């Protein structure tokens, strides 16, 4: 247990370090970009950078950054001086709403289609094809297509804005369902070959009951891990989805901050991402132990 905590902390520390040094290799920073653009003198730029401690040697900056991290202080945005924790706090809600809804869509679609695709009944081949498309179609194209069909042609749903959750969550969830469905399909097929399934059938249970009570129960366990991994995938997916649907959120902040070289904001989001990723993995571990009596 203590070993797990230590590894988790080490992974977060390494990710933060990686972000710090990867960003400090880049020439220039947000202050230079912004102030040069507004016609400030070299003197003013140097002053601003000194005020934020950016003129110190890289290792000193790294030390300050880590010390701040321990206190839960992620620094301030280079663009407007707003604390990074505040920037993230403001934008977190729409992203969490998008990711959770998408994960729900992905889980339902993935379990349903994956099970259907594993059996040999009417609709199985179509289910497999739909899963293939979900796994393979680029989200930025299915997203554009969804906007075209549902917003432009049918005019059912709005295509952008923070109030609209249906289209972006549907598109993102559909994409993540591909990975979940593939694993569920493989697991169900594997389970179908076990003796206890034959026993259940021999007892005279209906096929639907055999699947629901015996096969699904045994094959859904490994799906828990995949669902947690897909949650990690969703974090990357929100960057594209939020840009595509012009939704506010962490993904767009990350993209903007990277393009404008606003390092503290980028580092803050990387640390947040690493924390969420490791927590999800740990949760999947615990869930697995709770659900599987053998472990």
């Amino acid at each position, binding site marked *: 247990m203590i070993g797990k905590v230590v*590894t988790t902390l080490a*992974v977060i520390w390494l990710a933060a370090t990686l972000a710090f040094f990867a960003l400090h290799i880049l*020439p220039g920073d947000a202050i230079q970009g912004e102030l040069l653009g507004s016609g400030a003198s070299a003197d003013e730029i140097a002053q601003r950078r000194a005020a934020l401690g950016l003129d110190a040697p890289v290792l000193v900056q790294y030390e300050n950054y880590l010390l701040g991290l321990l206190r839960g202080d992620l620094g301030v945005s280079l663009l407007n001086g707003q604390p990074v924790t505040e920037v993230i706090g403001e934008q977190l809600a729409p992203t969490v709403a998008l990711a959770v809804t998408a994960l729900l869509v992905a889980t339902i679609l993935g379990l349903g289609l994956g099970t259907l695709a594993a059996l040999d009944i009417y609709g199985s081949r179509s289910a497999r094809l739909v899963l293939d*498309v979900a796994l393979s*179609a680029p989200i930025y194209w299915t997203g554009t297509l969804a906007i075209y069909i549902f917003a432009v042609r049918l005019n059912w749903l709005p295509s952008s804005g923070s109030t609209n959750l249906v289209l972006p969550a549907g598109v993102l969830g559909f994409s993540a369902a591909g990975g979940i469905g593939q694993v569920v399909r493989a697991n169900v097929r594997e389970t179908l070959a076990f003796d206890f399934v034959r026993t259940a059938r021999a007892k005279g249970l209906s096929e639907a009951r055999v699947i629901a009570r015996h096969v699904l129960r045994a094959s859904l366990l490994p799906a828990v891990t995949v669902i947690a991994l897909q949650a990690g995938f969703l974090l990357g997916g929100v*960057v594209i989805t939020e840009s595509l649907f012009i939704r506010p959120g962490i993904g767009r902040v990350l993209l903007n901050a990277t393009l404008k070289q606003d390092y503290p904001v980028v580092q803050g989001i990387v640390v947040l991402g*690493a924390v969420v990723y490791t927590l999800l993995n740990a949760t999947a571990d615990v869930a697995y132990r709770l659900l599987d009596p053998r472990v």
Partner: protein
Amino acid sequence: MRAPLILLAVFIILVILAPLIAPSDPTHTDPVNQLQPPSAEHLLGTDLLGRDVLSRALYGGQHTLLIAGLATLIAVVPGVALGLLSAVADKLTSLLINAVLAFPGLLLALVILTVLGQGALPLALATGLIQIAPCARVTRAAVISVSVTGYVEAARGLGASELRVILRHILPNVLSTLLAYTAVIFAYAILNSAALSFLGLGGEPGIPDWGVMLYEGRQAFRLAPWIGAAPGVAITLTVILLNRAADAIHHP
């Protein structure tokens, strides 16, 4: 089970033969005929500048598949080496792999593209480097599952050197897993490089490329959905075929 491999080969040959079969020059602009829907003259329509979408899709495949192929090499060679190392050596490498996995790949790609600028090689590097860690993890898992088998223990028991055990006994037995995963990485490379182009960070606007075409198609998708449809379908089909091929290699 051969079908996906054959279809994939057909697809690649069509793309390679683009100069012979494309109906027109993919960069030839014709403003008078802009945004034409599919017709006998332009089978897949024309784009904002009046360029033939079918020709651009064929030529675009060359650029996209070349970048994805390069990215796959960049990912697989160090990924497999690192995976072998971490499977036989120690916990430190696997900790490092996990840390990189916890790092948003898109961000790493953005940093690489900002440092190196736009172009084919930076794009291949950006998409390839972020796949090293997953590749190492898959290799590690495959190697560990083979390491505990009887024949590996037997080879060790007979006094074979560690290098010999890895090269002669472990590697041949994880080859099909690695080959299947290479197809998956190739598929990811197509999707990711196109995603970066779509965000406006990847390819140069002058060179036709599936990702760039999707980006251009996005700008006029309300009027002309066919511009994005060609590269969208091309990417989806190629990735489906690659995934099915990986499946066929893994479960013959």
